[in-house]
């Protein structure tokens, strides 16, 4: 066993399917899960004479990503190249991509390392390209099936610099990119459906060595968990090879999650010569600064910034701020609701969101899409803050307005749920109670707080929970 200490160097290429309605170069639908070859135009079938026409939405989405990662370059002129190779699920015999003039270059993403430090990961580039179809090898005995539905779906491939030093950092980076693209709304982030998948370039070198070791490329990993496992097992494999005096071969490898091992797909020598050249069917994409600036309005506040703002400006508890900021739905409702607030406070809103709201959502098993509007929610909170309803009643009302368009005001009115704060009515109730329970009242007078709770409980019982507790207390005290 040698005593060399090894360090790991990782770079990721993340393929992000863009959430456009139609494909990169044709009007065909990109909907996932349709029956095989039902979403294929003449273009994707590579019928002779068909030509690509660039879907501008893709350009806008790619620019938004560039803005979100603070890219130094968002190209005023980007171009498409052809990457030539034969494979049945790529009917044209080439993939349209951007090799030499990508739309986005030199951005940064900040991740948190295991010891809580911030670390900057550089993004080398993000370019637009088309996805391939799918080959189905296990369904038929004598031949393979080809499904071209995915063919031509727009992707941006996000290529990092080799800035990550362990599998955990790689996962943190991948999660951060996932957060960015899903918050931008340019990708649905669904890893099971392959909307978000990655290739990892992994190498090791002795600590202190400047040159990078020989890398291998782990292909098509589609979960955060597998990225971590695949990298760890590959790092172990490489170190073992090097320590036994062997060499790492530059090659493409596949991670087998069942066996938790990687195995070679093809080596550099067998690699295709893709014969890239500019696609003569497409003109350079030329835009001006105002086109880019116009996309800024679509850049949302990202979770890290949101969390900081919630704590600093709104005084939210750190834990609450973190949970809300990292959930797109919750933070959306939160931001809208607090903009409507008058008497209620952001923390009240957070409490209700993380308490009653979240448990109702959980009970719905994720079947509700925006079960309560911000108007409904703030109306509920305002009633609570004004003392018109108790916390307990608020919960009841939330259930009643859930998945409806009814306001809390309407429920309170219709079901007479407003707290009884009218001292005349409460005076009368308490007076009767005291008269009917003289011994309990005496005990209370002598300082037995149990009896105080008894009276409050009785008042609540008679008012069906609508009595304002503070007022009951004040009346009793002064009786």
């Amino acid at each position, binding site marked *: 066993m040698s005593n060399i200490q090894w360090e790991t160097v990782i770079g990721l290429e993340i393929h992000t399917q863009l959430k456009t309605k139609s494909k990169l170069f044709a009007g065909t639908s990109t909907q996932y899960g349709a029956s095989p070859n039902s979403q294929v135009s003449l273009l994707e079938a590579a019928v*002779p004479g068909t030509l690509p026409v660039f879907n501008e939405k893709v350009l806008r989405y790619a620019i938004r990503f560039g803005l979100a990662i603070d890219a130094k370059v968002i190209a005023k002129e980007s171009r498409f190249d052809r990457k030539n190779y034969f494979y049945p699920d790529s*009917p044209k*015999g080439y993939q349209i991509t951007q090799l030499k003039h990508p739309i986005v270059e030199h951005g940064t993403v900040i991740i948190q390392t295991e010891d809580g430090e911030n670390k900057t990961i550089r993004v080398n580039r993000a370019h637009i390209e088309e996805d391939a179809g799918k080959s189905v090898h296990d369904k038929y005995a004598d031949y393979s099936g080809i499904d071209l539905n995915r063919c031509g779906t727009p992707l941006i491939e996000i290529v990092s610099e080799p800035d990550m030093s362990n599998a955990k950092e790689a996962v943190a980076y991948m999660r951060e990119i996932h957060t960015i693209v899903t918050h931008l709304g340019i990708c649905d982030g669904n890893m099971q459906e392959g909307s978000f998948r990655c290739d990892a370039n992994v190498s090791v070198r002795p600590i202190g060595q400047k040159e990078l070791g020989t890398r291998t490329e782990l292909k098509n990993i589609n979960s955060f968990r597998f990225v971590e496992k695949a990298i760890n097992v590959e790092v172990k494999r490489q170190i073992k090879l090097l320590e036994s005096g062997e060499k790492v071969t530059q090659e493409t490898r596949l991670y087998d999650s069942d066996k938790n091992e990687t195995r070679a797909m093809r080596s550099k020598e067998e690699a295709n010569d893709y014969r890239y050249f500019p696609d003569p*069917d497409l*003109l350079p994409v030329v835009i001006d600064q105002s086109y880019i600036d116009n996309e800024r309005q679509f850049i949302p506040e990202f979770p890290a910034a949101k969390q900081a703002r919630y704590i600093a400006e709104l005084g939210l508890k750190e834990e609450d701020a973190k949970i809300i900021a990292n959930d797109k739905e919750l933070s959306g409702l939160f931001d809208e609701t607090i903009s409507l607030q008058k008497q209620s406070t952001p923390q009240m809103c957070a409490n209700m969101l993380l308490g009653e709201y979240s448990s109702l959502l959980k009970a719905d098993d994720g079947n509700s899409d925006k079960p309560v509007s911000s108007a409904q929610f703030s109306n509920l909170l305002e009633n609570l803050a004004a003392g018109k309803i108790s916390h307990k009643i608020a919960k009841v009302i939330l259930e009643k307005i859930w998945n409806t368009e009814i306001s809390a005001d309407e429920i309170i009115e219709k079901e007479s749920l407003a707290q009884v704060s009218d001292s005349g009515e409460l005076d009368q109730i308490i007076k009767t109670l005291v008269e009917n329970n003289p011994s309990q009242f005496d005990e209370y007078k002598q300082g037995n707080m149990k009896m105080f709770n008894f009276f409050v409980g009785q008042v609540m019982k008679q008012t069906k929970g609508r009595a304002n507790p503070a007022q009951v207390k004040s009346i009793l005290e002064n009786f």
Partner: protein
Amino acid sequence: MKFQGISHISELIKNREISVQEVQRHYSERLSKYAKNLNCVISFTSDLTTEQVQQAQRMIDENKATVLTGIPLVHKDLFCTQGFATTCGSRMLENFIAPYNATVVENLQSSGAITLAKANMDEFAMGSSNENSYFGAVKNPWNLNKVPGGSSGGSAAAVAAGLVPFATGTDTGGSIRQPAALCGITGIKPTYGRASRYGMVAFASSLDQAGVLAKSAEDCAYALSTVCGFDEKDSTSAQVEKEDFSLNLKKPIKGMKIGIVRDWIDSLSAEIKEKTIQSISELENQGAEIVEIQLPTSHLAVSAYYVIAPAECSSNLSRFDGIRYGHRCENPEDINDLYIRSRTEGFGEEVKRRIMVGTWALSAGFYDAYYRKAQKIRRLIVNDFASAFEKVDVIAAPVSPEVAFDFNAKKDPVSMYNEDIFTIPSSLAGLPCLSMPIGLVDGLPVGLQLIGNKLQESQILNVAYQYQQNTEFHRLVPEGYDE
């Protein structure tokens, strides 16, 4: 009845002196009489013809006719024609039925023109003699032992023999102009981007351009006006207004500056040189000013072209893999065997040669030495023409260094490639250019090329029309093909 061009037929039809069907029958009969011998047709589109005759007659009756309504044509067999075979002259697509119409086909259909057949061509438009068709060589109506030129040889032969008033063609490095010259007709390729490439089976995308072939510049103007137009389905389509190229024909060319390249003319054989100089003198007689110009990079054009065009072709033809349509070999062992044998069997020799050349030129390590350098030359040629057009309005040049040659005369591919020495420079620059007949040498036609500045189709058609007002060469009919 002897027809005298598109406007004559159009007038007869509009005046009800003849019906659309009678015109169609006249040409269909000629086609069935001569097409087989000339081998200029790959397939007839009878059902479509019948349908279009009815449509055209309706347009006439409803006074919605255009100048092309009821005018028969043949389409070069690389324009997708919905429901009909579109073979591209290849075994690969022998049984391919196009599922949609090319924009050019669509435009002509809307104008009421009548499609009679799909014309023979060099396989995938690669060739200068039409000997590269899987369906056999086309013969030149002027002499059946001679080639008609290529790749639009079927279209050119059909027009020259009077089997149709006009035909569509495509021109990548001379494929309209050279066969037009060798068959003694007029053929024009517009500015790159003027005619949509949608539905045209691609050879070299940055050069391919649709155009038309007819007897006269006037007929070319009518047909080209219909063929051209911006098309959002083609990203390289020029965003310019639709233009009627016939409006400018009658303008006198007095005072127009016509450039000539002395070296090009001096390189010609004595007889062709004489005809060329005579035709230029005719333009001078009409008042044009002849100006000598230089195109200093043009001697590199053929070399650059035979890197760029094959490079694009190697990629464009990758889709012919035997998987979804087209020729597939019997009993493939695996996917690679399927690819290799389907393509080996499906493509002819010249197509395979160009795929190989292009694949090599794009390969890692060779890209800079070939493809990039060729693109640089292309830019220099574009600049050459730009400076020339600062001095002149139109350039007059030879089309082909020789008249129609014998079959199998050019076994060395490079000697065949040099056929295009005068047509390739303007192709690389994407400029509009035409060929018009200027006389016979040894009983075979000679053409003159007119090259215009970007989008100046109407100017070169104007010059050709004026030339044809004072000459009869475009009216010559090869022996045995009198109407």
